[in-house]
């Protein structure tokens, strides 16, 4: 009733959600078996980075938007340089894209026709 059949696979969100909740319960059970002597405010919660202790006051640090995924964007730099260069913001270029797409569409439709 509430599932989807694609003829190739099936998707039932209710079953998935129940399964998800089941796994969640198991995970919480496993977690509850953990050590209870883990205490806040002691050396156990101190943060180390590469063996050096991170100072507490940097707890207020916030990774700003553009710093996320910089590695990936850097890796795709060649792609981004080209694609961002296409988004010039100049209306004439937009119109050129429109006219070019129209011409291409004509060519394809007439050739394929």
């Amino acid at each position, binding site marked *: 009733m509430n599932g989807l059949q*694609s003829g190739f696979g099936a998707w039932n969100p209710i079953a998935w959600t129940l399964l998800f909740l089941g796994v969640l319960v198991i995970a919480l059970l496993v977690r509850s078996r953990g050590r209870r002597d883990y205490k806040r405010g002691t050396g156990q919660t101190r943060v180390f980075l590469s063996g050096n202790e991170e100072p507490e006051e940097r707890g207020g640090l916030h*990774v700003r938007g553009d710093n996320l995924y910089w590695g990936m964007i850097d890796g795709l730099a060649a792609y981004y340089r080209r694609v961002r260069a296409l988004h010039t*913001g100049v209306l004439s270029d937009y119109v050129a*894209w429109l006219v070019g797409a129209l011409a291409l569409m004509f060519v394809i439709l007439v050739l394929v026709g």
Partner: protein
Amino acid sequence: MNALLVHAPVLLVAVPLLGAFAVPILGKLGRGVRDAFVGLIIAATAALAGLLAANFFAAGAVPFVYQLGGQSVGIPLLSGGIPIRILFEIDGLSAFMALITALITLTGAVFSFSYWRNRSGGTLYFSLFLLLTAGIFGMELTGDLFNFFVFLEITSIAACGLIGFRVWLRRSQEAGFKVMALYTLSGLFVLLAIGLLYSEYGGLNIGYLASTIGTGILDKVALGLLLTGLAMKAGAVPLHMWAPDAYGEAPAPMSAVLVANSQASLYAVFRIVFTLFSATVSATALGWILIVLALLTIFVGVTMALVQSDIKRLVAYGAVSQIGYMLLGVGVGLAVSAQAAPPAYGFVAIQGGLFHMLNDAACVGLLFFASGAVIRAAGTRDLNRMGGLAHHMKWTTVFFAIGAFALAGVPPFNGFASKFLIYEASFQLSPFLSIVAILSSILLLAVFVKGFQAAFLGPRPSQPVEKAPVGMLVPMAVLAVFVIGLGLFPGFFVDHIVTPAAKALWDGPAAYITTVIGLGG
């Protein structure tokens, strides 16, 4: 009740139009009167759309026409085999689109009330809002190409008036000019195509044209003009450049309605390739054109979203990429529909593409509303200068997360349900298609993780934050309920409203044509 039902198609256009012209007069009586009136009009419109769609789908989704100015509303008058008078034609797809539009315009209007609460000059905004609503409904319901052009231009003018409504913002004026110029140009392409078709066949009714359409070079030129112009208005790459400007610079509730506007253009693309020009060019070729556009749209949209640092442009590029999924689903269906024994996955693909329109409207609307609330609270749109809003705006945070997960296709939200159908069906045509679609979906999750992390996480902001008022939270909550409901019970919606809509495309133009001329002649 019955009379209301009979006249529902035209009332869907006439009632918001009436509201649009009455609002400036009632606005002089004060803000309360104006808001109550706009709420009444938009609620009545949404109720009419719901009534129309509910009855239509319950009655087995048989297409019917509404004749303006005739002796009766039913079967059109023919003159020499050509339908005369202005016709509205409602089939499964039109009714489905009307439902989407009703959902978005209703929530958008409620959000707008809070948005304009503390600013002056909202009266003309609501007038244009209702005009845009009337135009979108008209585009979806009309059965006549020339009417379609008129409604297209109504939406263009109203939409651009709303994009540039805040004349004190320099960027909104820039966006308004660019978008208006492009919309006008695409509208003129459409008009030229209409002129070509008229001079060839002497009629403008879509059903009539579909029944006589040929394979000549003029038909192909007309198809190219229509397809390019409407793909531009739908925001398909490489004609998408206006979309982030428009979605980004419009007032937040407008961005959501603009998505509904783009979807109406997408509806027109589907109507044209499936119904109007089904005989002109091979469906396989047309289908592959749509698929190539779709892949470009998905990939470029998502990758460009990743590098945005303006929260609304980020969501806007996400919205652009979703247009690609709809094109992909329907394109796959079109590409295989011409085969001697069309495989069943073609129908599944169309189901997925159309279902994704509904899902996309709900999620993108939610995200635009939430980002509007975020910008209002943070006082900036720059993701690099935001942070920690979750400490103050718990509900907005939750809604943004729901919308982001849903749009990125994370189960069990609704975006996954429709993307699942698209993945499965496109995989059977070519695994490459579904690989691009799935990878882009994952990338989209990364995009929204970036947006979410930058705006909501992090330490408590130092300056005080203006929380989202209840009037903004309610429309978000409504859309969030839709997102979750569509996600948990996709089978119900697919069976009852998506399947009739997909059938209207998949079964070819015969039903659409006979409704206009088969019986009346």
